[in-house]
Structure formats: structure tokens, C-alpha cells
């Protein structure tokens, strides 16, 4: 459990203003916001690397504000890995264990365990600069996790990676958190990461927390225009997926949606409004998802018209003005909404 109370800190050009956050035990908490709004500074205050101008930081009910970082037992991982270049991988991971009273055997055991968890056992004798970005970030994670920290602070841990490895490591972060349950604060400017990983999300801008909540709440009920603009995602839902005959069926409120994904169980997914087609009649087409629904609202967007259709879940749809006029749609009218299974983006 981490609790940040009324924390303020000036630092160069920007600062943190009156931050209040309660992160629950074992929670994966994501702070999302544009770059340069003080997200890193906030993490560094939690870690004890900066002393706040005002406010207190609690970890597990203990006030740690006056403790130096080495007494806080918090794992910290930066975007650019920051492996110690004067040590090999094994010594990097061992670094934090030196300051605790472990026997040689215990140390070896811990290094072995964490290396297996992060699949870096084959890298232990290598030099940091010979590793790829993804490998370096795994080592940085291992180095932070091996000390069994009370909390894990991740400062844009995936931002410096190539898209392919980023997605893989994102999955692994989720798996690792499932296994070891360390309370985690993860800072990012990437929506995908936030939707994919977060138990809860805080949106931050200009040194202030604008909104805190579950991902669906943040993305579907943004409390300010900034949050809405910044996230910019509509049609985001949680459902339960099962694979049947090579295609996934996701159930949500008695609605069953076809999607292309290997994931099963609880999933979060979104559908882009401009990829949904409306029609007055049912027809057979290659669009696997077709639903009858009632029009809840119509909003004029210039050349485009935004229509919300209730198909059991509220679905935002963008169509052209020409289509809109041609189909003579009106509120409360019944329409069919259809979209392709490939248009369902599962996180």
C-alpha cells in the first residue's frame, strides 16, 4: 500500500501540485499523462530520491518521507534501463543483495529464480552494452525484483523499446504481476499500456492528478475535456472471451462479439467508431458482428455524423453526412450495426 498525501515539489521548470493518491496493496496502478508533466518526479519522490517541498509519503502505513531511498526497499526501473555499465549482468542483479545479510547460497538462489522468471538466465555473464533494449529492460526488472521490494516503480519501462518487443514485454509485465503481486506504480504516456495492464489509472497533467479510476471509467467517463482528448478512445468494453472454432467470442451483457485474438477469459477491447457500418436491414456479409439496436443520440460533426446505438452496450458510430441523410436516421429508430471481427481490438 502506498499513500501519497498533499505532495508538492518544485523542480526546475515544472513541479507537482498537491498530489493525493492511494495505491492499494498488490495493485497495478498506472499514471498516464503527456511527457514532461512531472510523472518521473513523482516516482522519484516516492522512492526518496527527492525530498518533497510539502506533503508526506506512506508505504504500508509507515511514514517514509524522511527515510533515505536505501531504507525504503522500493524497486525502481527507468525507461532507459540504466544497467551499471561497470558490472556484468549477474553483478547488476546481485548489486542490491550485497547490502542485505544473505549467504552466498541464498544470493545464488535468488538470482537463479529471478533470472528464470525474466528469462535472462543465459545472459548472466554478458556485459550490459552487448544486450538488446528488451534484454536490458528485463535485467533492469530482475535487478529491481530480486530485492523483493515492497513496491515497484516503473518509469515508462516500455517506451524505449521497439513495438514488437514492447508488446511482448507488456504481456510479461502482466504475467509477472499476476505471479508476484508486488504493488506497482507504472508511469506511461501510452494508452495501450494503460488499458492492458492497469487495475486503476490516474491521469496526470501539469503536475496535477486530474482523475483516478478503473480504465473503463477513465476512458468512458472522462471528467474533463483534457482527459477525453488525451485518451481519445471510444467504444471500450470489458468482456469474457472464449475461443470457438478458431475465432474468439467475447460475451458482454448478453451481447456476443466475434474477434480475432488468441486471448481467453477476461479481456478488454475497443472498436473504432468509423469502422462500424449502419444499415436499415439485416443482411449476410463478411462482417461477422451484426446487431440490432436503437439509436440513442445523434451528433453533427461536420462532414461526419456521430451516432450512438444501444445494442445491449452503447456503441459510438461515425458515418458520413450523405449516408446519414440517405438513410433518414432519427433518435429511437432501430438500425443494424455491423463491424468485422478484425475490427475488434483486444488489449
Amino acid at each position, binding site marked *: 500500500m502506498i499513500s501519497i498525501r498533499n505532495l508538492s515539489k518544485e523542480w526546475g521548470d515544472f513541479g507537482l501540485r498537491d498530489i493525493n493518491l492511494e495505491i492499494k496493496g498488490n495493485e497495478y496502478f498506472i499514471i498516464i499523462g503527456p511527457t514532461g508533466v512531472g510523472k518521473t518526479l513523482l516516482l522519484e519522490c516516492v522512492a526518496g530520491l527527492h525530498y518533497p517541498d510539502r506533503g508526506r509519503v506512506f508505504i504500508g502505513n509507515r511514514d517514509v518521507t524522511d527515510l533515505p531511498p536505501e531504507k525504503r526497499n522500493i*524497486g525502481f526501473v527507468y525507461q532507459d534501463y540504466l544497467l551499471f555499465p561497470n558490472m556484468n549482468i549477474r553483478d547488476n542483479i546481485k548489486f542490491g543483495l550485497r547490502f542485505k545479510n544473505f549467504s552466498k547460497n541464498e544470493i545464488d538462489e535468488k538470482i537463479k529464480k529471478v533470472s528464470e522468471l525474466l528469462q535472462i538466465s543465459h545472459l548472466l555473464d554478458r556485459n550490459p552494452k552487448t544486450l538488446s533494449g528488451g534484454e536490458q529492460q528485463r535485467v533492469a526488472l530482475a535487478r529491481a525484483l530480486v530485492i523483493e*521490494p515492497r513496491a515497484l516503480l516503473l518509469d515508462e519501462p516500455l517506451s524505449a523499446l521497439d513495438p514488437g518487443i514492447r508488446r511482448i514485454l507488456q504481456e510479461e509485465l502482466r504475467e509477472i504481476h499476476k505471479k508476484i503481486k508486488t504493488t506497482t506504480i507504472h508511469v506511461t504516456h501510452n494508452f495501450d499500456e494503460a488499458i492492458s495492464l492497469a487495475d486503476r489509472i490516474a491521469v496526470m497533467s501539469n503536475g496535477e492528478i486530474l482523475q483516478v479510476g478503473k480504465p473503463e471509467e477513465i476512458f468512458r467517463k472522462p471528467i474533463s475535456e483534457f482527459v477525453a482528448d488525451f485518451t481519445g478512445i471510444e467504444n471500450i468494453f470489458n468482456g469474457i472471451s472464449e475461443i470457438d472454432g478458431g475465432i474468439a467470442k467475447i460475451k458482454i451483457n448478453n451481447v456476443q462479439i466475434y474477434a480475432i485474438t488468441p486471448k481467453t477469459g477476461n479481456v478488454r477491447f475497443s472498436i473504432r467508431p468509423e469502422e462500424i457500418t449502419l444499415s436499415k436491414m439485416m443482411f449476410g456479409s463478411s462482417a461477422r458482428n451484426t446487431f440490432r439496436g436503437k439509436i440513442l443520440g445523434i451528433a453533427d460533426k461536420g462532414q461526419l455524423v456521430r451516432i450512438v446505438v444501444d445494442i445491449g452496450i452503447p456503441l459510438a458510430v461515425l458515418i458520413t453526412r450523405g449516408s446519414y441523410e440517405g438513410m433518414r436516421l432519427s433518435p429511437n429508430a432501430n438500425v443494424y450495426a455491423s463491424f468485422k471481427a478484425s475490427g475488434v481490438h483486444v488489449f
Partner: protein
Amino acid sequence: MMKSELMLIFFALMGFFSIVFIALPLLNMILLESPSSLLKTLQDPKVRDAICLSIYAAFLTTVIAFIFGVPLAYLLARIDFTGKNIVESIIDVPIVVPHAVAGIALLTLFGRSGLVGEPLSFFGIRFGSTLLGIMVAMLFVSSPFMINSARDGFKGVDPRLEYVARTLGASRWQSFLRISFPLAFRNILTGCVLTWARAISEFGAVIIIAYYPMTAPVLIYERYLSLGLDSSRPIAVLLLLACLAMFIVLRMITRK
């Protein structure tokens, strides 16, 4: 290559003069002395003593500059404070102080009736004509090299590496010793070599504060005055070779 490169040719010519002007006097001097005359000179105990004293005093000076300079360099690289500007200016001052002026200033302060020299003389600590005086002169002119090199070294170490070390349980002192110092080590070593070279080369400040015990540069000057150019030259060549050897070490450090 293309035509119209007259400018480059002209520049190369000007550059050639510069190189020759620096290299020729040293080469000329070295080549004038035969190995046998150098060996004979080395057998003169006064020469041996002077060269050893120079090397030894410069070495001790480097050790002291290291002990006091590295902590200051670390602070200058890591901490911002008001007046940092002025501190950095003061550190650079010895580079522009004429050597004879430095000698007079140091003798005024550390001499028998000086602000520091007088009280210390009651404890038997004397600076005039002692090894201590030589080291004070050497330290004054050479310490900027140590501080500036080490500072550049520490500046090149990402402070967040220390942050990470501290979250892993290292104290400030441990993260300094295990992370920052090893990573800045090459720059600090460069600083040591430069400090040693500047210390051994000093003549003006040393001759004013301590004519005796005689360092190699002072001996060279004395032989030149009393016996002429040809008698002083072998000693000069020996000292030069020692300095060039150290210079090659320096180059090897910085190239790597």
C-alpha cells in the same frame, strides 16, 4: 580530389609550421645528446637526486590533489548551489596566474612571517626551502587539472545510475564508491597524470619558495647559469624523456 582546394593547401602549410615549431626544438635537443652522455649525466648524484625529488614531489602533490580535489569535483558535478559560478572561477585562477607571482604569493602566505607560515613554524613546520614548500608550489599550479578532469568525469555519469543504486539499498557513500567513482575513473586518472605533469614542470613558483632542496628544473637552470647550455642540456633531456613517457601513458588512457 576536386580542384579549388587551394585554401586547404594553404591551411595545411600554416599548420605544418606550427607542428614543426613545437616538435623541432624537442627533437633537436634530444638528438644532440648521445645515450652515453645521458648515462654519464645520470651517474651524477646531484642530477639523480634532483630528478628523483621532482618525480617524488610531483607524485605526493598528485596524491594530495586527488584527496582534496575529487570530493570537490563530485560536488561541482552533482549539486547546484548559489556561488557555484564563483567557486568554478576560483578553481581556474591558478591557470592564469604568472608562475613567479604564484611563488611570491605562496611565499608571502607560507613564509616564516606569513599568515599561515608563522603559526605553523612554532610546530616546526617550515615551507621555505623544504619539500613541503615545493609541494605547496606544485599543488597551487596543478590542482585545477585534477578538479576539472574529475568533474568532467562525474558529469559524464548519469546521476540516475546512483538513484538506482540507492533504491537497491546502497548508501550515498556506497553508490559513490561502487558506481560514480569507477565510472569516472578514466577521467580521474587523466586528471592525475595532468596534475603530475604540471607539478613536475613547474619552475617559477618552486624556485622562489624553495631553491633548495633542488628539483630538476632548478638544477637545469643552475647548471645553465654556472656551466652553460651544454652542461644543462643532458639533464633537460632526461627530464623531458620522463615527462614524455608519462604523456604517452596519458594518451593511452584518453584514446582507449
